[in-house]
């Protein structure tokens, strides 16, 4: 029964991006689909997943028949769990070496575009538009997290 439920959830999410109604989606949308189903993989983990669901000769499209079993397994094994608020907060605190309670715009840009799995310019700009307080040119990360979490719920 749980599996049936998962199947329906996966189907729904898949169909949102199945523009031609032929049970395929563009591979570039797979990340969105997987994440909207509650998973929080890294880019690396995402690439591995894509490799699993891709055709032997990559066509740029992912078929539902291949996606469903892989995704079901992911959900059953509860892989790629989302990040709790406090862990996220600690991550910011690590970057905030001077322990100010905020990061400057420059610091945020530097970390997000040079460390970890770097942001694209678009991703960076979008994050800045919501996160940075234009007056202080910095991000109060505690407030930011709270705001984002509320917004999600």
């Amino acid at each position, binding site marked *: 029964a749980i599996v049936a439920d998962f199947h*329906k959830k996966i189907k729904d999410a898949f169909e949102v991006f199945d523009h031609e109604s032929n049970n395929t989606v563009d591979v570039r949308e797979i990340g969105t689909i997987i994440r909207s189903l509650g998973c929080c993989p890294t880019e690396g983990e995402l690439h591995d997943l894509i490799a699993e669901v891709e055709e032997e000769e990559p066509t740029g499209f992912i078929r539902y028949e291949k996606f469903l079993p892989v995704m079901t397994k992911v959900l059953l094994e509860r892989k790629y769990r989302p990040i709790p608020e406090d862990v996220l907060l600690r991550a910011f605190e690590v970057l905030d070496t001077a322990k100010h309670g905020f990061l400057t715009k420059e610091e945020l840009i530097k970390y997000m575009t040079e460390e970890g799995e770097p942001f694209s310019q678009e991703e960076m700009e979008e994050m800045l538009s919501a996160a940075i307080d234009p007056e202080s040119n910095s991000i109060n990360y505690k407030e930011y997290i709270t705001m984002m979490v509320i917004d999600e719920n």
Partner: protein
Amino acid sequence: MGSSTSAPHRFAFQNAEHAFKAAALIQRWYRRYMARLEMRRRCTWSIFQSIEYAGQQDQVKLHDFFSYLVDHFTPRNHNERDFLNRMFTEERFAQDSEMEKSSDFESIEVPDSYTGPRLSFPLLPDQATALVEAFRLKQQLHARYVLNLLYETRKHLAQLPNINRVSTCYSEEITVCGDLHGQLDDLIFIFYKNGLPSPERAYVFNGDFVDRGKESVEILMVLFAFMLVYPKEFHLNRGNHEDHMVNLRYGFTKEVLHKYKTHGKKILRTLQDVFCWLPLATLVDEKVLVLHGGISDRTDLEFLAKLDRHKIVSTLRCKMRKESTKQEEEKKTANQPSSAQEPTPWFLPQSRSLPSTPFHLRPDKAHRAGRSCSIPCPGALDRQELSRHARRSVDLELERCRQQAGFPGIKESEEPSPLASGPDPESGELLEPTQEEWRQVVDILWSDPMAQEGCKANTVRGGGCYFGPDVTEQLLERYSLQLLIRSHECKPEGYEFCHNRKVLTIFSASNYYEVGSNRGAYVKLGPSLTPHIVQYQANKGTHLLTMRQRISRVEESALRALRKKLFAHSSDLLDEFKKHDADKTGIISLSDWAAAVESVLHLGLPWRMLRPQLVNSSTDNMLEYKTWLESLAKEQLSRENIQSSLLEKLYRNRSNLETIFRIIDSDHSGFISLDEFRQTWKLFSSHMNIDISDNCICDLARSIDFNKDGQIDINEFLEAFRLVEQSCSEGRDSACPQSTDTSDGGPSSPDPH
């Protein structure tokens, strides 16, 4: 030496590692957040689109409704007969001669107090510019100038070919704009950003200028004015909304009647004619074809170029005009059973029996469509044979109805051809388009591209077809073209390429569904005809919002619309839920909820993804469905003693109601008599399965402030209906509709009859 890292180095190394990990964590979290936002955006988009297209299907259903009436409603007296008669045919004088009457507008006086723009003909460029400015300042053009402008426009359009051929050697580049849908702000923005039309700056506007937005009239005035001023550089194509039947439903008719209370009808009549004269397509440098909807595998440009486009009054149906008595007599004497030579009345329920009408393709009938499609045909059907056979049985049925109704002698046919007496302009006889002509035009005004190969009926819209990249390739090759530019579909970015960049969709109405929903765009073609796209979003406010806020706003709007729709189907939903609740526990699983909702609404939406925003009150993946329906009702209703099932049915059919009323009010007087009102309700309720007694209707009519000569103002009625929901809480009991249903379950538990 330094083979082993000293303490500070190790510390630094660990720090770096921590920073790396921390950054990675934040990025991972952020990407998930953005993905969920994207999902919400897509879902929101689906909601709006599905509701929009469902509306278009409704239009088709309305046509079925009228067919149903003819089948099942036998008028009992001459009043009813006249009433039906009036609904289905239209009083029309000799079209051309009426249009030639310039006394139409010359007799209209413009008071000195009028401060709006004044036009004189022939129009000069600065007058057109002045119009734009005046409209920007929210002025309204006087009816006299509107009619004068329309009269001149018609004269100009009538000499244009069906496919306008345009060259870019004089103006250096040409700008093509898509749907505007009454959004004047977008038009003004385009002129501001791209420049006003001029001999050096050519424009093509690709249809759908009107409906939905609130300034359709103003847009038309501006477009027509520039077309008159720069006839060689300024071009218009007809869209599927340049159609009086569609306008009845989507707001343009209403806008005109509201803005021009005295002369609105005349303006609408004139517009009906002007729309028919709009060219069907524009060909740029013999290489780029611009048309509103799309193509089909049957599209024949030579055929399209030759037909009389003026005959196609509405793409929703082949309309028949009332014949003069002279023709009637001639037909009666020339009466034969094999009357295969006469025009087909539009309201006949032939759709049910004939395979060739594109608008009534249900899945089982789709295979019989007279077009090649990817759905296999069940054996070799001789289409002609089938339709002839079907027609014969319809003939008999119809003859019976006609006799009872006392309709004029009408006969059906395969293909109309000129009557024996020939076209006679003096008696007002006008030829009808052939089935093929009609279909060709419908195809180019209604079709949408699809990614799969082939060509199949467009059942979502109810008209035209879906065409694949192979169809595009075929057409482009056949006519040595390099690009097809079309509009008709709203796109988030205002434009979209498909079919290997051989088809470009351009849509110029930004924020079409809601503020922040999409950008608008226009495309410029230079001498090499490479497209260069410019995007915009007319509302400045949205730029300041983050994507998150923009999506939230649009989402809210979509969800509100969706909840309204859900409420409108409360009874059906309750029935469906009960099916999943065999043990009558009052609880169903969320999975069942999703399945039930889809089977009732048929919107094809991802319900499980939308569920968190539609259902707040679930625990353990289970839902108390009655409570949920009640909470939906609470949102929509405001007062205790409203009989929610009646209201819900009316609500669901609200836009249909309005359209029906407007069709009945065929002289656009804005009034219908109590008798007509009663009859309308009877017809309506028999089709919609609403049980309303005569008394009830009278009460309803009475409560709507109708004490002026037994007439009801359509607008008043609809307004009253809207106010009923709000103002009942103010205690105006007389305004509440009473139904004959005696069960009193209270406001919030919709009781199915």
